[in-house]
């Protein structure tokens, strides 16, 4: 039985794009320090932040640095001193950030960074695609992908709770699609400052590792090697990181539930099952493409096809149990990716789904669709094709193929 709906307070509404929504969330979370380097399609996000700080709406220190490597290094220092921190990047900026980016989850610093997703070079491109975020999927950051502008605002706020939960203590990437969400404007509801204050609480960042004269310590000393306590020590920290990621699966659920009670907006924390009741086959999506996918599923249902949609919100840690449960009853599944897995000649979410399907018997025929690279549209027509081919898969067409949706556009 679901909770009795309660009257929620009237809140302010406004129309804004995803970049402004992320900046509003950062202001509401009252971060202490922001370090930024602008890069398309993230630039307006940090311009909003600079404006909020200049206007006194956000009491934070803004550090303009010479590049993304310094962005994250500055924030490491701030977090080690106890600050709540934020930055945003994408594509080549994320690549330049890679060394401190690698270090962040191992330091267990609960930082929040938006990836305003952009396809990676080369070929030269400044448009949306998930290739940048997917390229860093094994680094150890939590990754959540948003579907709407409202979800961007809500998820950036929730990210602080998830990151700073003492069971997790990991950095969180909130991914929102370049172009589609970064510049797409929608009506959103803004929570009250007092509500967000109570929800996120005071920063709890450096209780375990700190730059603190009262607790002098060496941060990240040489650990590992073949002799002495090295091997066991290194394993202990790696296992701790993996445990934090697994705890995140539960914490993400709890935090989304609490946010739902506060705002009335219950975003699916790990995986959303859309019209999966009685579905014979399914399509899977990630990010803003989901809207078109849901419309296509509605149209197909109207035509009598028993198809549903499974959206993955949390990609890291990968919700293996939730995905295999969502796909437990279907006779075929297709996965639509907005990026490429170069090693497997398919999409990354497809490859992850294959792993989850290992837990499902009998084997579910599946295939991979890749679309929307470098800003290309994934339209209703593309999704209609995905649904049609998945229906054929259900009826025995060869599985395991990869289809490039925009190949002839």
């Amino acid at each position, binding site marked *: 039985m679901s909770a009795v709906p309660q009257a929620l307070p009237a809140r302010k509404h406004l129309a804004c794009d995803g970049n402004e929504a992320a900046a509003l969330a950062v202001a509401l979370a009252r971060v202490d320090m922001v370090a930024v380097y602008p890069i398309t399609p993230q630039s307006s996000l940090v311009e909003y932040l600079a404006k909020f700080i200049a206007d006194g709406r956000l009491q934070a220190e803004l550090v303009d640095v010479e590049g993304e490597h310094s962005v994250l290094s500055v924030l490491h220092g701030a977090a080690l001193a106890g600050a709540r921190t934020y930055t945003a990047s994408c594509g080549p900026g994320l690549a330049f950030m890679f060394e401190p980016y690698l270090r962040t989850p*191992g*330091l*267990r*610093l609960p930082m929040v960074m938006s990836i305003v997703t952009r396809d990676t070079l080369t070929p030269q491109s400044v448009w949306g695609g998930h290739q940048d975020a997917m390229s860093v999927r094994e680094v150890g950051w939590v990754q959540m992908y948003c579907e709407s502008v409202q979800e961007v605002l809500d998820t950036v706020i929730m990210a602080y709770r998830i990151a700073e939960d003492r069971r997790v*203590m990991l950095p969180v990437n909130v991914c929102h699609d370049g172009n589609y969400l970064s510049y797409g404007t929608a009506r959103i509801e803004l929570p009250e400052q007092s509500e967000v204050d109570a929800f996120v609480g005071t920063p709890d960042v450096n*209780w*375990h*590792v700190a730059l603190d004269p*009262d*607790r*002098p*310590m*060496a*941060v*990240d*000393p040489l*650990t590992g090697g073949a002799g002495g306590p090295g091997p066991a*020590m290194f394993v*202990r*920290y790696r*296992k*701790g990181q993996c*445990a934090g990621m697994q705890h995140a699966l539960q914490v993400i659920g709890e935090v989304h539930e609490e946010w739902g009670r506060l705002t009335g907006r219950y975003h699916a924390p790990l995986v959303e099952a859309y019209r999966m009741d009685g579905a014979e086959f399914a399509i899977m999506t990630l990010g803003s493409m989901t809207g078109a996918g849901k419309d296509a599923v509605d149209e197909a249902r109207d035509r009598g096809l028993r198809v549903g949609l499974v959206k993955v919100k949390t990609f890291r840690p990968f919700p293996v149990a939730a995905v295999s449960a969502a796909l437990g009853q279907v006779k075929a599944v297709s996965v639509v990716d907005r990026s490429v897995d170069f090693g497997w000649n398919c999409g990354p979410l497809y490859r992850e789904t294959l792993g989850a399907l290992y837990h499902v018997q009998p084997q579910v025929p599946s295939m991979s669709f890749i679309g929307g690279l470098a800003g290309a549209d994934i339209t209703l027509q593309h999704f209609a094709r995905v649904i049609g081919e998945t229906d054929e898969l259900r009826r025995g067409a060869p599985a395991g193929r990869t289809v490039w949706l925009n190949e002839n556009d």
Partner: protein
Amino acid sequence: MKRQSRPLFDVTQIPDDLCPIATKLSPMRPGDWRSLRPVVNRAKCVKCSVCWLYCPVQCIVEKTAWFDVQLDTCKGCGICAEECPQGAITMIEEAS
């Protein structure tokens, strides 16, 4: 090698599988890493104090009939042996 360490603060509330941190101070003294050791020939020493004057770490100590070296703090630089007018000090290699 003598090793001693002491905790810098109470770390019992910090889980040991989060971020690697070092929270014990291990003071190393020159005697822990010295490669050459001064040896005084007591028969040659006339207690002229030249070694005592020149020693940069002030590790020369006065005995009843000779000057000797405090080996915890001696870094093995050999200045005493170089400066001793009697040739009473020789530098020998520390055993490995």
